[in-house]
């Protein structure tokens, strides 16, 4: 009995929607896994905010260069054809609309496409925004990969975000462990159900109304 998609399957499903030749920025966490599932025959170029296009997989111990990191501050490699650049150029690529797809994790996403993924807004919490607000305003397509609910079962797909926004109305598609969901002018709509998952289950675990597959 299947119980939806695991983390890798969610990432693999998202990778299927990224066109050949796309310039792609992957957020930290499940989004990073997308790079492992590039569909046969397609080539993606990965951008990292700290100044590289053509980012490759983690290095072997021999390949490791302490100056070569990704935005999550993990050691990475540079693929043949890679380019390095400074931060203003890097965010010109982002803000200037040159990056095709950004895949992000989230705390909440709303039916109007609002995204909240940088702060719980709790008093005493240390706010840390990084490049998230630049990415959501500049990248052509913002995809979100997230569990459908929090660890305590609270819906992450909601009518309106209660956490501070990263950006308003910028999410186009969401990949959860239960379904692929589009943000449409009419709100959330299921595009595809994970194996063994019913629309009723998705509906029950969504914090607002959601439309079935067309």
């Amino acid at each position, binding site marked *: 009995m299947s119980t939806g998609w695991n983390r890798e399957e969610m990432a693999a499903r998202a990778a299927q929607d990224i066109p050949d030749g796309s310039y792609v920025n992957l957020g930290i966490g499940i989004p990073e896994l997308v790079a492992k599932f590039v569909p046969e025959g397609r080539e993606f170029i990965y951008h*990292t*905010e*700290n*100044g*590289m296009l053509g980012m490759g997989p983690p290095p072997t111990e021999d390949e490791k*260069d*302490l*100056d*070569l*990191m*990704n935005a999550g*501050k993990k050691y990475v490699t*540079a693929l043949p054809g890679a380019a*390095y*650049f*400074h*931060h*203003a150029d*890097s*965010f010109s690529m*982002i*803000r200037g609309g040159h990056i095709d797809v950004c895949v992000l994790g989230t705390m909440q996403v709303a039916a109007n496409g609002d995204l909240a993924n940088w702060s719980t*807004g709790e008093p*005493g919490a*240390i*706010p*840390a*925004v*990084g*490049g*998230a*607000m*630049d990415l959501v*305003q*500049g990248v052509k397509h913002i995809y979100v990969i997230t569990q459908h609910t929090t660890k305590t079962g609270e819906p992450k797909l909601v009518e309106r975000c209660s956490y*501070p*926004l*990263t*950006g*308003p*109305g910028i999410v186009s598609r969401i990949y959860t462990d239960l379904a692929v969901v589009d943000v449409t002018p009419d709100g959330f709509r299921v595009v595809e159900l994970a194996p063994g998952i019913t629309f009723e289950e998705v509906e029950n675990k969504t914090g607002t109304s959601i439309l079935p597959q067309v």
Partner: protein
Amino acid sequence: MINKEYATAADAIADIPDGATVMIGGFGASGSPVELIHALIDQGAKNLTVINNNTGNGEVGLAALIGNNQVRKMICSFPRSSQSRVFPELYKAGKIELELVPQGTLAERIRAAGAGIPAFYTPTTVGTILAEGKETRQFDGRTFVMEPWLKADFALIKCESADRLGNLVYNKTARNFSPLMCMAATTTIVQTKNLVARGDIDPEHVITPGIFVNRIIEVSKPVHEDTLIAEGRSYP
């Protein structure tokens, strides 16, 4: 004859006064000018405003500068990480100020200062609490937020190779904010792994032209923050 070379890190940073605004290059450990930062700890300037993407890791480099109570305010995009403890503790105790700036806005504010542009409009933060109180304007029917330039008195920078004129080449993603900071500071102080002869850097390969650099020291075997942390080191 132009010669921007200084003998030691201590000489190069000796005149940084209390209350100065100091940009420090690097993104996390990558590109962090650890020797210059440690010289600044030895020198002891206080009430500094420091601009960096992060707030340092462990108890070396930037984190050690903060831990030594020399920093009044941090301007950064991401003040915490898995190995940052010093800043979070001081921040929660109300002992250090934080100006949180989105990463791309931080880069562009620094670039704008170096380019002589006092402010610019960006879509970043529109519709969020970080845009509250800021001037906005419509262009082509879309709302943008005005952001001011960000200048500094000094910049501390690490590079791979430099000549005595101050032409710089960086290593891989250690470049990050450094070329921008070189432009935006009144006095830019660089530590280079290799001090090379004038003409040894192909003009086509110069990343920071020497006009943006004031002082250079050679640190031929720079320590790396990650290595120091892995060894359990702290500074001083």
